C-alpha cells in the first residue's frame, strides 16, 4: 500500500534522512523505532507532504505522491496524527472531530465516523461539548487519534501516541491501537515504548541517524541484538 523508497530529506542544508526505505502492506501494523533524532517524525511528515524529499520517492497505492501538497495527500487517504497531539484547544471535542472529517462529502459518512470514534473512545462522547483544551493528556490523545480517524483514512500514521502519558494510559492507548488494527485499519506507528510497540506490530523497521538499518517481524526485532542493546537495555 505504502512504499517509501530511499528518501533523503534536508532541513535547510542539514540532512535529516539519508536514505529511508520501508513498506506498509494493507491491514498491517508497522512500527518504526529508533532513538531521538533518528528521523522517525521527519519520515512521517515527509509522507504527509509537510516536508519534501530531495531524492527518493513515495508511492501510495501505486501512485507517486512524492512532493505533493498535504491537502491532496490527505484526500488520497493518509492521515497523520502528530506528536504532542496538537488539538484545537478553544474548540469543543465534537468540533475537533468534525474538523477531521471536513474532506468527507456526505453527512452519513460523518455520522458513521463519529459513531466509530465514540465506540472506540467512549470517554470522548461523554465530553463532546467540552473545550478540547480542558481535557486531560490521555483524553487529548484520544481526541487526536479520533480526529485522524474521522476521515476514514486508508492509512493512519500515529506519531508517539503514548508520549507523556502515565503507564496505565499507555497500555490503554496501545490497546486502542491494537483494536484499530483488528478492525482492519492499516497503521504506521512511531513509538518510544519499543517493546510494547513491537509486540503489537506485524513488522518493524529500525531507524538510526536517518537510515533504516534493520527490519523484520515484530518478534524478530524484539529478539534482535541491535534492539536489545540499544533500546531494551538487555
Amino acid at each position, binding site marked *: 500500500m505504502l512504499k517509501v523508497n530511499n528518501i533523503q530529506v534536508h532541513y535547510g542544508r542539514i540532512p535529516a534522512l539519508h536514505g529511508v526505505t520501508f513498506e506498509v502492506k494493507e491491514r498491517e501494523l508497522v512500527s518504526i523505532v529508533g532513538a531521538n533524532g533518528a528521523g522517525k517524525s521527519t519520515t512521517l511528515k515527509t509522507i504527509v507532504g509537510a516536508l519534501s524529499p530531495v531524492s527518493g520517492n513515495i508511492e501510495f497505492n501505486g501512485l507517486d505522491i512524492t512532493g505533493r501538497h498535504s491537502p491532496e495527500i490527505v484526500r488520497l487517504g493518509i492521515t497523520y496524527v*502528530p506528536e504532542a497531539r496538537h488539538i484545537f484547544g478553544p474548540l469543543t471535542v465534537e468540533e475537533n472531530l468534525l474538523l477531521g472529517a471536513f474532506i468527507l462529502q456526505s453527512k452519513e459518512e460523518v455520522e458513521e465516523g463519529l459513531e466509530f470514534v465514540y465506540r472506540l473512545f467512549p470517554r470522548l462522547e461523554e465530553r463532546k461539548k467540552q473545550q478540547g483544551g480542558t481535557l486531560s493528556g490521555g483524553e487529548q490523545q484520544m481526541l487526536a487519534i479520533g480526529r485522524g480517524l474521522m476521515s476514514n483514512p486508508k492509512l493512519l500514521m500515529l506519531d508517539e501516541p503514548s508520549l507523556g502519558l502515565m503507564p496505565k494510559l499507555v497500555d490503554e492507548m496501545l490497546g486502542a491501537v491494537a483494536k484499530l488494527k483488528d478492525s482492519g485499519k492499516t497503521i504506521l506507528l512511531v513509538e518510544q515504548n519499543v517493546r510494547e510497540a513491537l509486540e503489537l506490530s506485524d513488522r518493524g523497521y529500525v531507524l538510526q541517524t536517518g537510515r533504516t538499518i534493520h527490519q523484520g517481524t515484530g518478534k524478530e526485532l524484539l529478539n534482535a541484538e541491535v534492539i536489545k542493546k540499544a533500546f531494551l537495555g538487555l
Partner: protein
Amino acid sequence: MRQVLKNILSLEDRPRSEKIGFIIFIVIILVFPWVVEGSYARAVMIKFLLFALFGLGWNLIGGYGGQVDLGQAKNVGFGAYATALMMVWWKVPFWLTLLPGMAFATAESFAVAYPMFRLRGHYFAIATLCVALVWKELFVFWDWTGGARGVEIPIRPTPDFAYMQFGSPIYYHYFIFLLFIAQLLFMNWFRKSKLGYQLQAIRDNEEAAASLGINVTNTKVITYCITAALGAMGGSFMAAYYLYIDPDFVMPLDLSILIAMTVMVGGAGSMWGPILGAAILIPLDMYLGAWLGGQKRLGIDYMIYALIMMFIAAREPKGIWGVFERMRRRR
C-alpha cells in the same frame, strides 16, 4: 436553504445572558436617535457603529484567523474612493458604487495575498502595513484621485435616497445599523461554517490543520479577501456620510491600527469582542479629542492608547471579552 437561514439567525450555542444582552444592545441602538438630541453624541454613535462594522470584518482574519493585518485602511480607502469618484465623475447612485469598491478590494487583496502569506507572525503584519502605506502614497501622488486634496462629493439640492444624502443624521444612523446587523449575521454564520472552523484550526495550530488536509494558504487567502470586501463596504459608507475624503482620512496607518486595536481590546476571535472594543475606544477617542481640543495632536491620546495596548498585551490577551468569559466560567 432553511438550514443556512437557521445557522445565520441562531444563537443557540450562546448562553442566555448573552442573548439578553444582545437584545438590550439592539434596543438601545434603535431608540438612541430619538432619545439623544445632541448632534455630537449622534455622530459618536454613528462612528461607533462604523468601527464596530470595521472590527467585525477585521475579526475574520485578525481574530478567527490569528493573522495580524495592519493594512485594513487600504480596503477602507478603496471603498471610499470607489464611491466618491464614481459619484463625482459619472453621478452613479451610491448603491451601485458599493459592489465595485468591494470587488476592487477583493481583487487587490487576492493579488497581494499569496506572496504575503509566505510570511508569518510579525513579518506578515509588517508586510500588510507596507502594502497599505504604498497604496496611500499612490493615492496622494496620483492626480486622478484628487491627490492630497482629496475628493469632495457635491451636496444635492434636496435630500436624495439614491445618493445617500439625507436631511437628518437619523437616516445615516439606521443605514449603518442595517449594514452592521447584516455583517453581524454574516459573522454568526461564518464562525460555524466550514471555512470558519478551518480558519480557527489554522489559528490554533497550523501544523495540525495541515495534517487534516486543510489547505492552509488558500483558507487564509479567502478570508483575507472577505475581510477586504467588508472593509471596503464600510469605506463606501464613510465617503457617503462624511462627503469628503482624502488619503489622510480614509487610508492612514492610524486607521489600520485603530481597527486592529478595537478588536484586540474587545477580544479577538470572539463574536462580541469587536463591538465591545469599538464601544470603548470610539467614544474615548471622540470625547478625548473634544476635551483636549487642539492639543490632541500633542499625542496624549496616543499615550492613552499605548497604555491600554500594553495592558491588554500583558494581562489580557483575550481582551475585555476574555475577562467576561472567565468570570462566567468561575460562577
